[in-house]
């Protein structure tokens, strides 16, 4: 059984990594990340793995702590922070997803002498408030504005922002950014929140977008809040017979979306460049702990990077290496 062998090898590899013990004194860093089957967090992992090479070369270690599920979100994240504190790490890279839950634990880590960098979620103001040394990530709102402006630059006037997880603050900020970005440029946009029963059902998402496009003929742009939703949206737009007229964009990247950008059925994708987030956060933190460096650039914004026909080839190379 080849597949089984591969599976076991993968399992072993992750186990070995997480049990690697520190050898000499140098920065031991814990990175908290999202679920395994979340494509995004596997790119973050690539950044962590590449940064690890540098940290280990200086005698330190990097431990990537991942959430198993998102069902018990806030307590699980806090638990991971506690784990890092109890492991007596020197540095912690953590996304501040749920400030109410995480803030006390992050403060506790800082008062235990751990240097913290907020990554991916939280923002620079939050980092300052907590006493973290920096924020490395993108700003959802700024990314949204960039998307809105891109639509406008390409002559689009009425954009639909499809939100498959309405109520999630970061996704709402993406749509709000899009709406503000295009409104400022003289266009219009609105959000289409989809019910939870559609999440993960590609057909239901595609049909919802198709129905909305048929109902409102003035919509000439569609943007989705995740790369997977863009796969559904592409079929929805095609079904409505509007591939030629409706410009499709999305937040985040995946292979099929890039294929569409390459052959022209999707306009663009907004990338927050997750690889840079973990790579920069881990190396910055290790350097600050080991060598006392201090980066005056703050926050460190890793996005938005817009992928469209002009830079698709280089992006595809990055994808094949698991970094985009």
């Amino acid at each position, binding site marked *: 059984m080849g597949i089984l062998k*591969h599976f076991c090898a993968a399992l072993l590899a992750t186990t070995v990594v997480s049990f690697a013990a520190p050898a000499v004194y140098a920065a031991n860093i814990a990175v908290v990340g999202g679920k*395994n089957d979340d*494509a995004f967090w596997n790119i973050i992992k690539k950044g962590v793995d590449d940064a690890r090479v540098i940290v280990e070369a200086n005698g330190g270690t990097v431990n990537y702590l991942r959430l198993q599920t998102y069902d018990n979100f806030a307590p699980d994240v806090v638990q991971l922070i506690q784990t890092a504190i109890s492991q007596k790490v020197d540095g912690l890279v953590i996304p501040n997803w749920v400030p109410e839950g995480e803030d006390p634990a992050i403060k506790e880590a800082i008062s235990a002498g751990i240097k913290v960098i907020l990554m991916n979620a939280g923002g620079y103001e939050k980092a300052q408030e907590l006493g973290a040394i920096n924020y490395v990530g993108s700003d959802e709102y700024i990314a949204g504005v960039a998307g809105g402006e891109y639509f406008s630059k390409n002559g689009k006037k009425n954009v639909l922002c499809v939100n498959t997880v309405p109520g999630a603050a970061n996704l709402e900020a993406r749509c709000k950014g899009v709406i503000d970005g295009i409104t400022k440029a003289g266009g219009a946009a609105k959000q289409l929140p989809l*019910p939870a029963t559609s999440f993960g*059902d590609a057909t239901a998402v595609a049909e919802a977008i198709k*129905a909305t496009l*048929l*109902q409102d003929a003035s919509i000439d742009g569609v943007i989705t809040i995740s790369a997977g939703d863009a796969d559904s949206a592409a079929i929805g737009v095609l079904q409505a017979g509007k591939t030629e007229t409706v410009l499709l964009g999305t937040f985040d990247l995946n292979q099929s979306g890039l*294929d569409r950008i390459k052959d022209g059925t999707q306009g663009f994708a907004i990338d927050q460049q997750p690889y840079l987030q973990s790579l920069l956060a881990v190396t910055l933190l290790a350097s600050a702990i080991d060598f006392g460096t201090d980066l005056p650039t703050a926050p460190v914004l890793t996005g938005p990077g817009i992928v469209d026909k002009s830079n698709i080839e280089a992006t595809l190379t990055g994808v094949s290496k698991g970094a985009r």
Partner: protein
Amino acid sequence: MKNFPVGDLLRRPESGAFLGLVFVLVFFVVFGSVEFLKPAGAASWLNVAANLGIVAIPVGLLMISGELDISIGAMIPAGALTVAIISGYYGLPIWLGVVGSLTLGLVVGLINGFLVIRTAVPSLIVTLGTLFAVQGLILGCSVFLTGTTSVALSPAQSGAVAKALFGQFIGGSFQVTIIWWMVLTVIYVFYVHYSPFGSWLFALGGDKVSARNAGIPTDKLTVTLFVLSSVSAAFLGMCQAILFNVAQVSAGMTFIFNSIIAVVVGGVLLTGGFGSVIGIFLGTITFAIVNQGIYFTSFDRNWSSLIIGVMLLLAVLMNNTFRIMALTYSPKKK
């Protein structure tokens, strides 16, 4: 049999489901528009219903027999990823991907079935275990083999034949899965309501021990049902991958809940022993209409989930009333 047959019709297991369907249909025609019934609008809920229906019927049959299979939530992406990895990432012939997908369904179904009959562990727990196990397996394999959790399967790799069979839009808007769903429904109706298989099924759901004592091959039947649901889920995933040209690890979980809802709206008892294939078929359409109908109304989209919840509750209540009427009915003495 001289009586007016309306009473008899209303007491059939699927009549409640049918009235629930009529109710939501009228609701959305009144509050939405007639567009909803025209081809483009109908495609919108028929496509959703077909996708759900292909797994809802075997899940419903398991529920009639007193078991549950929630591992379908992982089998759908597993089926999709298998075909996408084999034929998309490695570029092997599409038939190999299709066979691989269905074989995986067969294997997981057998594992589910044997674990349920060999151990005393409830099928909810067994399939919860395989749900996570399969999810972990596909994630591990996908990341290990392809380095990503979203694997593309281009139309060229699928080829014209597979695209036509599993992933085309008939008349530009009807997914070919609708035909699969209809054909499968007819086959299920035949086997469940017009063959010994069906009587065994209901006997199994009614009282397992008596069923076995009466000589019904209960173990074989249980394993067959688990294989059916698992293979159906893999089949659906495969169709989706070919249709959407991509497979994702994280998709499919909503199908667990949605299929159980469709089955219950269709009049199957959660405790087993009662239900019908036509009922499940109608329940699935009801669910799809409620889910998609919202886009044809002028309600603020933020209220979607609320409306879906209330409509489904009303449909089930309606259904329940009729089932109670049917089960407590006694003909007047002559």
